């Protein structure tokens, strides 16, 4: 490679390695913060679902003496009874209770007379999370009790209770914690691709808009170096940061893998050396694309700040295929592997599902991303050659 290109590249790397801000924003934010966030989110989700299913239900009841048989029934269901005295509305507003059950004094009287006996349930329907689950469980317990009693009464009168059920709905909810966890995991491709974009962002801006802003561009252009070589060196430095951040992101993911609740989700993700190798191979060529796109935008920007805004917005683009794939399951075809970002998404998803990634897919992904990346790099160089580069502000 041309010696001048290496000189420019090494200078930009050295220059930016000394900048704590750029290291913080790329490596720390992209490579460490994201995977850790990811693990925390997954664990939080799993533990919330566990709570719902396994935690003992505690029921705050006012007037439990009015319905002795109901109380003994729900006690057999493993519910813990908590006597409540006071204003149920206030208790819920103050979040002292998640739900309050009030049994009116005339409950036993009506119950014995065979007319509908009322049980009041106070709750906040807009509450989130476990509160909402509590009230649902309470209501379903009461309803089950009412149905059981009703059936017994019909049977006592010699009527088959099944007459009541003209139509039955049989629910088959196949959604499991696993599929919900898998949905979260489908965010992983974006996390990895984003790492790459975050890593190269700061350098793309610093080497172009930054050079202009600190008034060193004119002096730099006076050196006997072709502008295409100059920008190539800068692009190499930018890519290097992107690649480093990507590799660190992968390593971090590998390290935090044991802390992911994969077993609880019934998943086995194999992030062994072979799969990491595949990820590096297919994500690597994206570095050229990311660096070139960011450099083009930063070259056009009038100031460092403006460049930061636009390049920041650019990071939303790699999210599009990730989000689309979350909602639109796609049957993978080989031609899709030629589309940058989409191909990386598909391949990462295959690895997450434990499928074998085919060699043709890997090659197609590399070729497609390399090609688009190189075209964008050429465009960046062409734009950098304009005479007006210096005077755009």
């Amino acid at each position, binding site marked *: 490679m041309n010696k*001048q290109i290496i000189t*420019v590249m090494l200078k930009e790397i050295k220059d930016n390695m000394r900048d704590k801000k750029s290291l913080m924003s790329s490596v720390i934010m992209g490579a460490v913060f994201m995977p850790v966030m990811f693990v925390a989110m997954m664990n939080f989700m799993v533990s919330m679902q566990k709570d719902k299913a396994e935690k003992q239900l505690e029921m705050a009841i006012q007037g439990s003496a009015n319905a002795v048989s109901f109380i003994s029934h729900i006690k057999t269901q493993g519910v813990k009874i908590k006597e409540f005295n006071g204003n149920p509305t206030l208790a819920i507003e103050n979040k002292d209770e998640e739900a309050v059950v009030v049994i009116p004094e005339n409950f036993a009287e009506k119950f014995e007379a065979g007319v509908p006996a009322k049980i009041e349930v106070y709750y906040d329907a807009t509450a989130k999370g476990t509160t909402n689950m509590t009230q649902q469980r309470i209501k379903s317990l009461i309803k089950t009790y009412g149905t059981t009693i009703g059936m017994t009464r019909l049977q006592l009168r010699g009527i088959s209770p099944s007459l009541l059920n003209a139509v039955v709905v049989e629910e088959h909810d196949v959604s499991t914690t696993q599929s919900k966890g898998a949905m979260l995991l489908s965010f992983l491709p974006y996390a990895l691709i984003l790492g790459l974009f975050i890593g190269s962002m700061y350098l793309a801006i610093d080497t172009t808009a930054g050079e202009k802003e*600190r*008034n060193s561009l*004119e*002096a730099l252009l*006076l050196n*006997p170096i072709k502008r295409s070589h100059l920008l190539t060196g800068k692009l190499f430095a930018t890519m290097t940061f992107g690649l480093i951040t990507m590799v660190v992101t992968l390593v971090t993911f590998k390290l935090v893998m044991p802390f992911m609740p994969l077993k609880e989700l019934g998943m086995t993700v194999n992030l062994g050396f072979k799969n990491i190798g595949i990820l590096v191979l297919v994500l690597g060529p994206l570095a050229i694309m990311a660096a070139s796109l960011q450099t083009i935008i930063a070259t056009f920007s009038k100031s460092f700040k403006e460049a930061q805004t636009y390049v920041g917005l650019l990071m939303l683009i790699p999210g599009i295929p990730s989000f689309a794939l979350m909602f639109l399951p796609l049957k993978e075809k080989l031609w899709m592997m030629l589309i940058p970002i989409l191909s990386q998404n598909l391949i990462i998803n295959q690895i997450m599902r434990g499928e074998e990634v085919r060699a043709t897919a890997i090659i197609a992904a590399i070729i497609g991303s390399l090609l688009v990346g190189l075209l964008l790099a050429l465009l960046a160089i062409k734009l950098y050659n304009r005479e007006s580069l210096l005077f755009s502000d």
Partner: protein
Amino acid sequence: MIEVKAVSKSFGEVKAVKEVTFTAPDHQVTALLGANGAGKTTTLRMIYALITPQTGEILIDGVNPKEHPEKARKLLGVLPDTRGLYKRLTARENIEYFGKLHGMSDIDIKNRTASLVEDLRMQEFIDRKTDGFSQGQRVKVAIARALVHDPQNIILDEPTNGLDVMSTRGVRRFLEKEKQRGKCILFSSHVMQEVAAVSDEILIVSDGTIAARGTEQSLMELTKATNLEDAFVHIVTNGEGHE
């Protein structure tokens, strides 16, 4: 030697430089004296091939920068009017970077830097990061990195702009020494005093053309003025004397 022959440049409607011709020979300090916006910087930028002239021809030691920009730049050392440094690098690293871009060997860069440090008196701050440097220190580093390859032709755009007396003297002393070494020095300025103090030939630039040329003495005789400032005003206002 720098030869400029009938060079013009327009930006849209504005004719920044009109048919300018002059020669800056070796062993001499040539000054472009003119008000802000007279066309000095544009002329210089065409010489160092940052912008392309629309008409005319420029030769630097016989090399046309339009056809061989890299070759021409090797023959030139330029202090442009923007002189930002890399703040996270030391002064020495700033100079080394440009030396490497010129294809110099590490030994050559080291020796040349040592002599520039000596001549420009940069011993105190040469190994400090340039963030927070004074204006004078910054200009010295900018001059050193521009001349690291010891070029025959030296171009400086407003070299002492914003410098205090001591730094200005330092730069002048340095230019005098380079002239003794046989260099061709071309600089632009709007400061009369400075032009009078250092230049052998003065070109008065006004409205994109060279309005007059000569030594300080000959320009004063031409306009019957007693100092360069009066001579300058007389020339750029066509003898009307006032703005």
